[in-house]
């Protein structure tokens, strides 16, 4: 999307701004002097003409740059696109028709095509692509090791490694989780999560723990790990701070990491209500309530925070039978609209009969209306 050349453009803009500042500053100076009769009209006239000349010059430079840039990039992009498509076809023929490939090094469009295929294909085909990527020598590694590479070059390299998914490149990525630039840290977390395998996952877990990334970014990394996330989530729950634990609880539920379900219990009594809500949400997503936690869930029905009551109500159907029904019936009188809605949906899970009864006979008119609404939607 973004084409090269913005540095030159930025330089041009800087030049234009400098010219403008110079011209305007001179004009203001000259006119101020005129006010106190320190300068004659001819000098003011000259300053105005100079300002006009500089503006004209800036306009010519800018227009010429824009037009030349447009024409040049259109040509270059067309050439790159053709080369990319040619290489894509060549790799596809090598994969499916066993056509021999020219020996590396391959040009940049070839590597882009290779990464694109690696991103799309799986199984044995992906293994062959991985082999070719190794043969290609991964030129991006240089940008990550080098001291002078720009931030965009490093970001591009991290993304390329993320697409290549070569486990041996994790070592290049992990140091970036300590980088002072949060954008590079986030890119490294994403890349690391895509690359890490086996022991690398634990190394990534330790690096993520020390990265100081916000919880949304940590959650993204955990979700990218998918079935490999278990040891990372376990480490976060054990040693993480508030952000890491929140991300771990969210990921635990979303990835359905059942072996860690028992670990959630301790968070139901955490002093931080957001962590308690995340724990309740994780249990709801797992669809499983470990024995002995019923009391903790019911206690949250009386929490002052609406979001805690909401999460607790969503868990009630898991209690089953009369206990669940009683809890949900009571929650239909909750002052919060959202808790009443969750209660009505919970009753629906227990059976339409329970919901119909609430719609007909619940003492709270708002509870009745909510049950009626959910009943109508269900039927």
């Amino acid at each position, binding site marked *: *999307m*973004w*084409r090269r050349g*913005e540095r030159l*453009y*930025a330089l*041009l*803009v800087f030049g*234009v*701004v400098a010219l*403008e*500042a110079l011209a*305007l*500053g001179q*004009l*203001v100076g000259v*006119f101020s002097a005129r*006010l106190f009769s320190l300068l004659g*009209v001819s000098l003011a006239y000259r300053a*105005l*003409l100079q*300002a*006009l000349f500089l*503006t*004209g010059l*800036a*306009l010519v430079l*800018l*227009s010429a740059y*824009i*037009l030349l*840039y*447009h*024409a040049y*990039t*259109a040509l270059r992009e067309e050439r790159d696109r053709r080369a990319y498509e040619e290489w894509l076809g060549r790799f596809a023929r090598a994969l499916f028709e066993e056509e021999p490939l020219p020996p590396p090094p391959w040009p940049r469009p070839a590597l882009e095509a290779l990464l694109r295929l690696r*991103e799309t294909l799986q199984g044995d085909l992906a293994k062959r692509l991985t082999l070719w990527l190794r043969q290609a020598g991964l030129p991006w590694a240089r940008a990550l090791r080098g001291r002078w590479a720009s931030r*965009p070059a490093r*970001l591009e390299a991290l*993304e390329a490694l993320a697409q290549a998914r070569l486990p041996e490149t994790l070592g290049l990525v992990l140091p970036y989780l300590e980088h002072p630039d949060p*954008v590079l840290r*986030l*890119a490294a977390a*994403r890349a690391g999560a895509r690359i890490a395998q086996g022991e690398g996952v634990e190394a990534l877990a330790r690096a993520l723990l020390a990265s100081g990334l*916000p*919880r*949304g*970014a940590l*959650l*993204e990394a955990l*979700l*990218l790990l*998918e079935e490999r996330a278990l040891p990372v989530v376990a480490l976060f729950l054990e040693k993480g701070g508030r952000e890491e634990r929140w991300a771990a609880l969210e990921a635990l539920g979303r990835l359905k990491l059942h072996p860690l379900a028992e670990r959630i219990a301790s968070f139901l009594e955490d002093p931080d209500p957001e962590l308690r809500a995340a724990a309740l949400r994780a249990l709801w997503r797992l669809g499983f309530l470990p024995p002995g936690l019923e009391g903790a869930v019911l206690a949250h029905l009386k929490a002052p925070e609406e979001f805690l009551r909401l999460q607790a109500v969503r868990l009630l159907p898991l209690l089953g039978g009369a206990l669940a029904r009683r809890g949900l019936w009571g929650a239909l009188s909750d002052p919060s*609209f*959202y808790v009443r809605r969750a209660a009505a949906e919970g009753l629906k899970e227990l059976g339409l009969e329970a919901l119909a009864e609430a719609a007909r006979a619940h003492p709270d008119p708002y509870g009745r209306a*909510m049950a*009626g*609404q959910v009943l*109508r*939607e269900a039927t």
Partner: protein
Amino acid sequence: MKLLFLTYQLFVLVYFALLNLLYALFALFGVRMVARYARELSELALKDLLEREAYLPVSILVPTYNEEKTIAASVRSFLALHYPEFEVVVVADGPKDRTLEVLKEAFRLVPVEAVFRRALPTKPIRGVYRSLTHPNLLVVDKENGGKADALNAGLNLARYPLFCAVDADSLLDAQALLRASRLFLEDDRVLAVGGTIRPLNGARVREGVVEALGLPRGFLEKMQIIEYARAFFLGRAGWSAMDALLIISGAFGVFRRAEALRVGGYRTDTVGEDMELVVRLHRRAREEGREYRILYTPDPICYTEVPSDWATLRRQRDRWHRGLWEVLWIHRAMLFNPRYGRLGLVAMPYFFLFEALAPVVEVLGYLMLPVFHLLGLLNLEFALLFLLLAVGYGVLLSQLAVGMETLLLKRYPRLRDRLWLLFLSVVEGLGYRQALALVRFGATFRVWRKRGVWGEMRRKGLEAEAPDQKKP
């Protein structure tokens, strides 16, 4: 008298110099911000976000009034967005035309009895409809109360943690929501995100999707392409880079719903309700001493139909300018107030001195020319040269914005179009901009008389084809 004239001249010059230097500064900040954004945006990350369900669901709120020509195509485009979990809440704000009937026919709407939380007061709701063909479409029919009231009604019915306010005459880029919502996921402090708006006129649209952009035929429509590029790529990008973005266009903005509800939703007594909500979010967060961010992001693109006739354009600009004054008045306590940091000391004063008052200074300047001439104080040649300089600076700013668009997106891919855009940026300064300054000048004196009054827009319809891009 001569001293007075020279003092006036100096005042105008200092004002002009400050204004242009500020614009130039925005250009610098804007280039930096846009370049950084473009380099950091990872298509791979967006794909991962989509596949792993690491997103926040969004309610798209579409307030609509008399938009029978555009509403079906707009809603279709919203329903076709690339986003895993979203709902579209169309609020028909007591339309006088067939807007509601068109919606009923196009989406097979059936009435439902909706129970919803009336968190914000609105005009009475007459009915709520669900679609038999699109389960994530909800249509609300209510008594007319204005755009802000309609948005509040939509907010009451919305279910998801984020909401996206869009105009009914707008189309969204397929990935717009995904790109904007990514920012909320990655940073809890983000309260709102605004995107870039581009004129839809001249685009080739099929099934609610913009297939290609071309330059429209109309002069006014072409001019607005330049204006929008300048407003977004210089103004908003610059302010966002300075963490002082005060405007998120009503045509496309994504907000945290809970935050909007917490500050009381949209105000219904102003026509600048979009800017007002953003200023109020800033104000509340600053008063509470919270860390927060309100961002502009260049790529989430929204296409909107811009006025093609002078009467509609004049009404629109009149309304925008009155809206600006209303917001400045409502939040006058923030002006020059150090409690609000750079908002109180830079952004609000800028909008007061260089946006709200600019047409007054400009038009008075034109009016004073013959007066000074009659008084024998005017050096005509000098005055004309100065006017030429002013036009030159205006052209320069427009060209900077065109340059930014070329680098970032190149949505107008033909060299001929680019040449046209550069030429139009010159033409813009030769009458068009002055005419709009006159409209805004008039609006300044109508603020109190027409408080909260909207003007009607004339629509052509979204499925119009680009004039010189006929389908094969």
